[in-house]
Every structure is written in C-alpha cells, then in structure tokens.
C-alpha cells in the first residue's frame, strides 16, 4: 500500500494543452499522490476531459511535461501502466464481456486460456457482473457497461486507474453503487484513482484531493480537499461550484 513518503504517481509541470491553435488550459502544475482518489473538477467545457486525454497519452501537450509513474504517458512499447474507464464504457461491441476483459490479458501476458478465464471471472465478480460473461455490451444497462469497463481497466492490475465522468448518465442509485466500488478499490487495493467529474455528490463521497480548472481563467483555480474547498474557499467561482449556486448569487 502506498505511503505518504512515496513519490507522486503523476507529475505535471508547466502543462499547456489545447486543440489546433486553440489553448484550452495553460501552465498547469500539479501532482497526484500515490493512493489518492484525485478529482479533476470544473464546469462543462472547462477542459477537464482534455486534461485527462493528455494524462493517458491520447493527446500531445503544446508545452510542458507529464510523467506517469516516472515516464511520459505516450508509450512506444510495453503494457500500459494504468487502466482507463471512458465515459461511455467504450466496450468493444462485437465482443462479449469476457472477451472485452480478456483482451489486455491476451495481448500482454503469456497466460493460458484457463488462467485468463479465471482472471476474467474474478474481475467481473469484483464489479458485480459475475454471470454476465457471455453478454454483449448492447445487452447491458449503462451502469453495467461502466462496471464492465472498470473490470477491463483492472484486468492487468494496474496501480493507477483513470475514470472519465463515471457517473454520467447513471441514476442516483447506480451512481452511489459506482462510488462505493471506487472507494472499495482504493481502500482494498491501494489503487490511485484519477476521476474527471462534475458530480458534486460523487466528489464529496470519493475524492481525497482535487484540482478545479476554469475555462475563462484557463488554469487551475483551486486545489485541495473538496470538503475544505466547499467550506473555506474565498474564490467566488469555487464557492459557486461546490455550493451549487450561480456566480451572481
């Protein structure tokens, strides 16, 4: 289990990101401690998903550096050192749940079919989907797809997992179930979790630390524990976000 003295698992320095020539956020500096549930917050269009895409190596920064476990996120070889849950689950529609979860195991391990099958079943059991191994993604509900996506992200037992808007599209009960699963994974496995979200209930339930990005400021406008920010931030934008009110109020 990680301890407080361990080096951060993610280090971001002077990061400037955007699309084409449009700068979305600039000069971002932050670290993600090992073992934390770290939330990246912000309003719609603030750039938080863009930050995530850079952290998982799908986009190249305009300037600055990102180190994930001591290496740049854009890998040229070797197994990924992290798992990712995309907003819609991003399960491969032509494969069953079992095949989806088995895919990274077949690619990156030399395990035989029986061993892979055992691991797949254990991952699906972990997320409460035992019995659905032979279902296709189209036969599942939104919440089940998210859980299956987490199972696939955990297939290689990574020390780090990224979750992109995990509660999006879920009913309140499914959202709470997912939050509890995230907390359980963090407590039991010591897994560092980076969550992009704007769901306040989830933020307070799961996040130990957070940064808040703002579209107009094009930078981080708050960092720290979400509850402390809600109760103590003097920035009107931060207070408005955490207390769910308009800026004019």
């Amino acid at each position, binding site marked *: 289990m990680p301890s407080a003295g361990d080096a951060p698992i993610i280090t971001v320095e002077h990061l400037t990101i955007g699309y084409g020539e449009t700068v979305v956020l600039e000069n971002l500096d932050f670290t993600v401690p090992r073992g934390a549930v770290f939330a990246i917050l912000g309003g719609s269009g603030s750039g938080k998903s863009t930050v995530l*895409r850079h952290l*998982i*190596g*799908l986009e190249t920064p305009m300037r600055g550096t990102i180190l994930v476990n001591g290496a740049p996120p854009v*890998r040229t070889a*070797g*197994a*990924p050192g*992290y*798992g*990712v849950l*995309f*907003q*819609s689950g*991003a*399960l*491969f*529609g032509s494969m069953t749940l079992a095949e989806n979860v088995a*895919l*990274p195991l077949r*690619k*990156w391990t030399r395990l035989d079919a029986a061993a892979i099958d055992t691991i797949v079943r254990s991952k699906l059991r972990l997320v409460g989907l035992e019995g659905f191994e032979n279902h296709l993604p189209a036969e599942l509900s939104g919440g089940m797809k998210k859980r299956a996506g987490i199972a*696939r992200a955990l297939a290689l037992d990574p020390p780090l997992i990224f979750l992109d808007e995990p509660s999006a599209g879920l009913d309140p009960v499914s959202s709470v179930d997912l939050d509890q699963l995230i907390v359980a994974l963090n407590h039991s496995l010591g897994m560092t979790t980076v969550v992009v979200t704007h769901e306040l209930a989830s933020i307070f339930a799961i996040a130990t630390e957070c940064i808040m990005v703002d579209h107009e400021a094009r930078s981080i406008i708050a960092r720290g524990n979400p509850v402390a920010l809600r109760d103590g931030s003097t920035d009107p934008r931060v207070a408005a976000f955490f207390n769910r009110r308009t800026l004019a109020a």
Partner: protein
Amino acid sequence: MIAADGPGYHVDRVDLGDGGAALRFAGELRFRQCFASWQNVRRLARPPTPRMEFDLSHVDHLDGAATALLLDLRSELVEAGAAAEIVGAQGPVLAMLQLYGAHPPRPSAKDPPAQIGILDQIGHEVLTTVAETRLLDFIGDVSIAGAQALRRPSTINWADVPHLMERAGADGLPIVAMINFLVGMVTAFQAAIQLKQVGANIFVADLVGLSMTRELAPLMTAIIVAGRSGAAFAAELGTMRVSEEIDALRTLGLDPYQFLVFPRVLALILVLPLLTIMADLVGIAGGLLVAMLTLDLTPSAYLIEVQRVVGLWDVFSGCLKTMFFGLSIALIACQRGLATHGGAEGVGRSTTSAVVTSLFAIVVVDAIFTVLFNAVGW
C-alpha cells in the same frame, strides 16, 4: 416624431426635462405584431438623449422575441452613447426581462467567414479535407504500423481475417453472382444486335469472354464490394471512433492499425480475386444464355470459342487488378472510419465518403492498369 403605433401597442416619446427622454410603451408587445412596425419605434428613439428610459408600466404583455427587440434597441442606444434603462416593468413583463436580460450581450467568439476568391476556396477546401480526414496522419501511421507488422507478423490480429473474408466474400456471393450474370447477359444482348447483321454470331463468345475477364467482372465486383464491405468497414470503425473504442484500444496498448485495419486489408485482398473468378464464370454463363436464345448458338460452340480466346493471362490480369482494388477499398474505408467525428451524423458522412472515394479509386486504379498493360503489350 413623438408617437408610434403598431398592432396592439402604442409608444410615446416624452421629454423628461432634464436632458433625458422616455419612450412610454402601452398595450401588448407581441413579436409577430411588433416586428413589422418596429422601425417606427427605432425612429422614435432618435436622436438619443444622454439619458433614455423605456417605460413599460402600461405594457400588459411582453413575449420573448419582443423582449429581444427591446434589449437590442437599448444596446443600440448605449452604443450611441446614451444611458438607456428599462423601468416600470412588473409581474410577467418583469419576469420576461429578467429571463432574457440575465446574460449580458457578448461579442461573437468567432469572426464571420471571410469572402475569398474561387482559387482560394479550392485551396482552402483541399487543405481542410486533408486536415479533417487526417489523410497524411493515416498514411504515416499505416506505413509505420506496416513496417512493424512486417518485422513481427504476429502483432496483426489474424483471428479476425477469416470472419472478415466470410462477410466480404461468402456473404456477398449472391449479389456478385446476380449482378455479373446480368452484366454478361446485357453485354451479349448489345453485341448480338450488331453481330447478327454481319453473321458473326460466334464472336459474342469472344466479346463476353474477354470483356468479362479483363474488365467488367473485376470492376463490377469491386464496385459491389466497395458498396457492401467498404461502407461496413467505414461505419464500424467510425462508430468505434465516436464511442471511444479506438481510444480504449490505444490505452490497452493495442495498435488500431494492426488490430483493425490490416485484417480488413488482408481480407479484401484475398477475397476479391476469388469473387472475381466466380464473377467471370457467371458473367460468361449470362452471355451463354443470350447466345443460345437469340443467336442460335449451342452451348458447346460458345464454350469452345470462349476457351479458345480467353487465356490464362486475361483471367489473371483481372484478378491482379482486383487485389489492388481491395487494397484501395479497405484503406480508404478504414481511413474514413478512423477520421470520423461528430457522432452519428459523422458516421453517416464517413460511410458515404468511403464509398464514393472507393469508387473513384477503383476507376483510377483500373485506368492505371489499362495503360500499364497496354504499354507493355499485355
């Protein structure tokens, strides 16, 4: 002018005596009734005084679009240097103003498109197409992935190839057969009319045999495959792109080109020659039917003539072309699919573009081969 009238409303301009003026509105401000006569209200507001009031105390009804007219007029006066405010609104009229006036006006975030000449437009469209379709990225990525696959062929997702061949080949057999049978028949029909006149009936076998094997069967088969499999590949990969499945593949350490693109390329390269051979046979059979029914040829006479005139090279050259057709169709369809953006509409655009571009590429490749074979005397 000191007053203006419109259907259902009335506006007076009143001097406030301190250098200011007020426009006093009364009645119902409904957009459909206001709009046509609003120019009169705007004229009433001129010349603007340093302080202008819009008094809505006697307005009984204000709808959303009429609110926009009022707010626009106020903005106009503010820009002209006046301090303009709306006063006296109450009840639903006040609520409407608060709703529409809550967000201050902002300048457009983007400049309007500039007027450019036709040459500039053509250049702009070409550059936009190259950029949006990420064509150069695709060519580079395919080249790198291809080099890696040649060094380590096991990285290609071979498991998908038989299934893709079945979908592109076996499932397409009925339509390929039917179309080429009809093409053979039509070709023979057209020829029969002329050949009968000169008593050269037997040469229908030459015409159908050579035209089917060298040109018509490869072309028609490729066109059908472009419409079936090209569209399917573009739609599949496009849907995967918009639902983040391609991103998920990359984060799992899987190369989309080796996992998705190359199996499709291999499937079409292998399947098209097989379909073309079948198309040759079926097309010749279509010609046979017409020869028997309209030219009084016996099957044996027809087939012996076909066998005499159609050589191995004629069949092989047609099959060789189709391998390049298959390569073109698969690469174009996969490129369009991977470049998809914009949700379901984007998938539709990519699919259409994949088919149209594939058809164009088929004709271009066919022309290249025709010139090439002619040049070397084949």
